[in-house]
């Protein structure tokens, strides 16, 4: 007889494993199915290892600029293998951590590839993928077989999108998988796509000395970010020597033995060719909706994303989806929180669906970019009457002391209600700052509470208070 669970979660990425823990906390008998790596892409091939790489790049950058701080560091160099090794080590540590968390929370891990036969019935088969061959089942994992669960939550995530002609080949044209474990740093690199993934790799490789070109099809880089912030980012990147084409398209890649010639349509009627060592295709991701039995069950799918309501429910009772596979924004923390809301709703707890305007987004390039809520353009598009406040890093004592005086904090308030509807930042450590505004938004503060919030001195966070004051004509240090 098939072993029966209250909840089976398919996929152990950040969405899946957090959902599993929360489900277990709520008293559900929970299992999680994984085919390759506990922790999924995020902590094995995404968020975490890239942060490890970027940290190496950042320290390299500081060492190159040691003189600026009155220090001496000579013959500064790097060992790509060691940088990658550190990154893989970080992932491994967290991967083990997820295994421990599953055990601690008495979540059963089922090793293999799952498909849903009918609501409540899940068949797990041995995984066949390339990645699966390179990873072993953690100790104590349940074997493939037939399982049952009252609720099945799909958290299978997403994978790099493939555009015709730009197909990754693992050698010359990389996705983030290959870009994360380079054997050497290419002399020249073309990054197609300027979303968070593309820009982070562009920043990483540029810092390590590669000639980097970024091609973005939309009119601005970092298309989801506020135009003003993206503009500042572009200036900063160009100053670092990154070449940027926006409103442009890579129409053709001619692959040679150890290089690629790219044809770029610059969007103004001109084309040019560019010879590079390597290409990174970062043109977005697409949901892993295949081979789950969804078509058979009639689960509604729209543009490679499972259609769900605010509680992760699909159109088929008993089947849920969270995270990247359930549509944008494609962020680990969004997936985690969707999962929590999903299982809490299954438990019968009264929860509001997630407000997607309160999900922060962070890009860990140099300079860092962080944002939450509406961009200025989106607020105007919504016909909101807004007040915008800005505070530049150059007016902040801590920023100057850090040697990081370039950057901006920008806030957008709804004039009528005083609601903070958006916050956008660029500069040092802003990815750690944004959360202050996210808490404020989530608690539904108005400008009044923010103005009466004491920010510690001297910190970068003082700029957050100043930007709010600026929105109301009360800025102090500018």
């Amino acid at each position, binding site marked *: 007889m098939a072993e029966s669970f209250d909840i089976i979660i398919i996929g152990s990425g950040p969405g899946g494993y957090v959902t599993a823990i929360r489900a277990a906390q709520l008293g559900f008998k929970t299992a999680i199915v994984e085919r390759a790596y506990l922790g999924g892409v995020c902590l094995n091939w995404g968020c975490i290892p890239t942060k490890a790489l970027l940290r190496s790049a950042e320290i390299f950058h500081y060492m190159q600029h040691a003189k600026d701080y009155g220090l001496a560091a000579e013959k500064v160099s790097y060992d790509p293998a060691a940088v990658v090794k550190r990154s893989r080590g970080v992932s491994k540590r967290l991967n083990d951590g997820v295994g421990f968390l599953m055990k601690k929370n008495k979540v059963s891990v089922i090793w293999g590839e799952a498909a849903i036969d009918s609501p409540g019935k899940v068949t797990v088969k041995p995984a066949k993928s390339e990645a699966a061959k390179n990873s072993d089942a953690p100790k104590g994992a349940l074997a493939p077989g037939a399982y049952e669960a009252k609720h099945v939550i799909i958290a299978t995530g997403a994978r790099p999108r493939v555009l015709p002609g730009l197909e990754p080949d693992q050698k010359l044209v990389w996705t983030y998988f290959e870009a994360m474990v380079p054997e050497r740093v290419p002399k020249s690199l073309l990054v197609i796509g300027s979303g968070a993934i593309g820009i982070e790799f562009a920043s990483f490789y540029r810092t390590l000395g590669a000639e980097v070109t970024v091609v973005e099809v939309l009119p601005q880089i970092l298309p989801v970010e506020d135009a003003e912030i993206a503009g500042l980012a572009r200036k900063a990147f160009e100053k670092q020597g990154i070449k940027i084409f926006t409103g442009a398209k890579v129409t053709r890649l001619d692959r040679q033995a150890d290089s690629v010639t790219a044809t770029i349509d610059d969007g103004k009627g001109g084309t040019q060719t560019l010879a590079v060592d390597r290409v990174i295709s970062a043109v977005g991701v697409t949901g892993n909706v295949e081979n789950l039995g969804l078509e058979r069950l009639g689960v509604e799918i729209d543009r490679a994303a499972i259609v769900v309501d605010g509680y992760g429910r699909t159109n088929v009772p008993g089947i849920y989806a969270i995270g990247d596979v359930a549509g944008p924004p494609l962020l680990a923390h969004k997936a985690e929180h969707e999962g929590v809301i999903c299982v809490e709703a299954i438990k019968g707890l009264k929860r*509001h669906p997630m407000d997607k305007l309160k999900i922060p987004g962070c890009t860990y390039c140099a300079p860092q970019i962080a944002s939450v809520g509406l961009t200025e353009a989106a607020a105007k598009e919504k016909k909101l009457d807004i007040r915008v406040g800005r505070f530049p890093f150059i007016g902040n004592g801590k920023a100057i002391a850090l040697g990081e005086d370039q950057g901006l904090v920008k806030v957008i308030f709804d004039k009528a*209600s005083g609601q903070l509807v958006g916050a956008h930042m660029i500069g040092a450590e802003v990815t750690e700052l944004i959360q202050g505004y996210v808490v404020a938004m989530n608690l*539904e503060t*108005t400008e*009044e509470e923010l103005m009466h919030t004491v920010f510690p001195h001297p910190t970068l966070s003082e700029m957050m208070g100043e930007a709010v004051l600026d929105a*109301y*004509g*009360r800025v102090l240090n500018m």
Partner: protein
Amino acid sequence: MPINILMPALSPTMEKGNIAKWLKKEGDKVKAGDILAEIETDKATMEYEAIDEGVIAKILVPEGTADVAVNAPIAVLAAEGEDVKTAVAGAAAAKQVAPSPPAGASKPAAAPQPSPPPPYPPPLAGEGREGVPTPASPVAPAPAANGRGRIFASPLARRLAKAAGLDVARIAGTGPHGRIIAHDVEAAKSGGAALRAPLPSPAAPGIAPVQAPSDDKIRALFEPGSYDVVPHDNIRKIIAQRLVLAKQTIPHFYLTISCTIDKLLSAREDINVTAPKGPDGKPTWKLSVNDFVIKALALALIKVPEANVTWTETGMLKHKHADIGIAVAIPGGLITPVVRKAETKSLIAISAEMKDYAARARARKLKPEEYQGGSSAISNLGMYGIEEFAAVINPPHATILAIGAGIERAVVRDGKIAVATQMKVTLSSDHRAVDGALGAELMGAFRIYIESPTAMLV
């Protein structure tokens, strides 16, 4: 720098107050501790002390003004030696939030208008630090001092509620631990579905009741142990629900007349002596004044059929018969059995029916169909010596007639003082269904029947 003097919050829950009296006038010097004005709340009149020194440059809100929102500027104080005119100009923006002039007598009991949302930026000349004992936020009423009955609402929710003219306390919170969040205010604005404690009445869907203070808040007003708590029985709950509903959803107005009932009293005596005696030697029936009142009102309703109606949102129910509810006091409450087609019934039949109703009402044995419906009602407190009163309409009725005691009075008749027995009757009307002139017409018809009971014969 001019300082705005703001409407003070004299109690933690105060949101509005009246300027009862200015004790300083424009140009007067004030020093800290001087009494500036008397502020009236619904509970008390309190003195408002100056905190800063200066000269009253301008009084923005004249005395006698009602419903001034807390923190609205009410006057401008110029510092010593400061140009008074400049000071006033500096505070000009403040006038935008000054409330409307005193409410005229033409709108008594008008609901206070929601005050406009404060304009931004709020930092005007007189922020809290400059002197007035105000809560930090100009919009959020401070929580009750004892922490009980505190309303948990997000700042944004409070501000949105204020802007929408909604009492945040009335909104049901769906945030963590029942916190009221912006979502709830939006829901309350759009549907009213999220309003707390809606009355379970199909008669007035979508009309939100005003939320009374919480039990905890009320109990906190009394010394613990100084009272007993008697749980409500069902009848008390229903009375409370129906009367709150009636007063909240029915626009009442009142018409009072004095009826001379000497003829009625003598007719009643004449008729009563004709009652046959039963086996126990007592009369088998005895008409009461109330029986006459029922019949008179029934006939009046038939004579003025426009007043024999029930309001519904989709249309007026024009009744073909006069079904009249009679308020009967019973232990712990009251109930209103309905005399159906009263216009067709003899006084003796009405009398007998009422006797039966009253007995069974006291035994709480009336059937629902016996106390539901009707187009008008009678409440008679004359037997208690009440001279006149106004009754609350009992929906679905459009009117209710409140009957006072028959009292001998000196009246002027043909230029001479005479003695007459007079009974004051007050008609409460649902203005949606019965307008003033129509109510007056109904009262005129009633007067004819009650003053000349023989008219009931024709």
